[in-house]
């Protein structure tokens, strides 16, 4: 398959989470994935998009960009918003990613356990979350 990717722009509405899920699943399914793997990716992406809607924009109007591409022998999904941004202190302290923390966000814990890599990149405005899932080249081998 030739190099493939997508960029999707949607308003930050709850009813669009399902939309993103099936788009990402259809895209990921172009590679040889099992349904449980697809489900992992769908759940992780849902968490990231829901965060942008709820935390990034506080349920106010805004746009979310979702990008997908295959690279580094896996699938990258980026979820980008231009909302209030995620607390840099929180990320540095790894509070959002540490399951040992007192009140850890379950969303990021989830994303981390379902994906092979999760990166949180605070933008000048808003947040970018990069999710990476390794895809076995040939599982029948």
């Amino acid at each position, binding site marked *: 398959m030739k190099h493939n990717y997508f960029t999707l722009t949607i308003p930050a509405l709850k009813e669009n989470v*399902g*939309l993103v899920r*099936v788009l990402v*699943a*259809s895209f990921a*399914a*172009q590679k040889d994935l*099992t*349904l449980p793997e697809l489900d992992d990716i769908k759940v992780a992406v849902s968490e990231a998009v829901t965060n942008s809607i709820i935390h990034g924009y506080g349920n106010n109007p805004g746009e979310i960009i979702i990008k997908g591409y295959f690279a580094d022998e896996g699938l990258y999904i980026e979820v980008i918003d231009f909302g209030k941004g995620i607390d840099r202190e929180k990320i540095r302290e790894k509070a959002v990613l540490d399951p040992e923390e007192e009140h850890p966000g379950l969303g990021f814990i989830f994303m981390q356990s379902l994906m092979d890599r999760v990166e949180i990149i605070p933008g000048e405005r808003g947040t970018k979350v990069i999710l990476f899932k390794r895809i076995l080249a040939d599982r029948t081998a």
Partner: protein
Amino acid sequence: IGEIRRYLRDNNPIRVSRSLRDVAYKALQVRDNLVGRFSREPTVNEIAEELKIPREEVVFALDAIQDPVSLFDPIYQ
């Protein structure tokens, strides 16, 4: 026909797994039931509610068991 079937299958956006197929056929079954009950074509939302799964998943599953190519595309290119 075998050639065409293989073409369609190989070009399916998702390798149609068993459980996905199950969702799709259940959706079609529910659709038939609802046609009987409402005496009209049910909406996707009504089917999804009956199945208790998100409507996008109904759409996704049904698409996976469908002929994915353009009807008027030359099959052999």
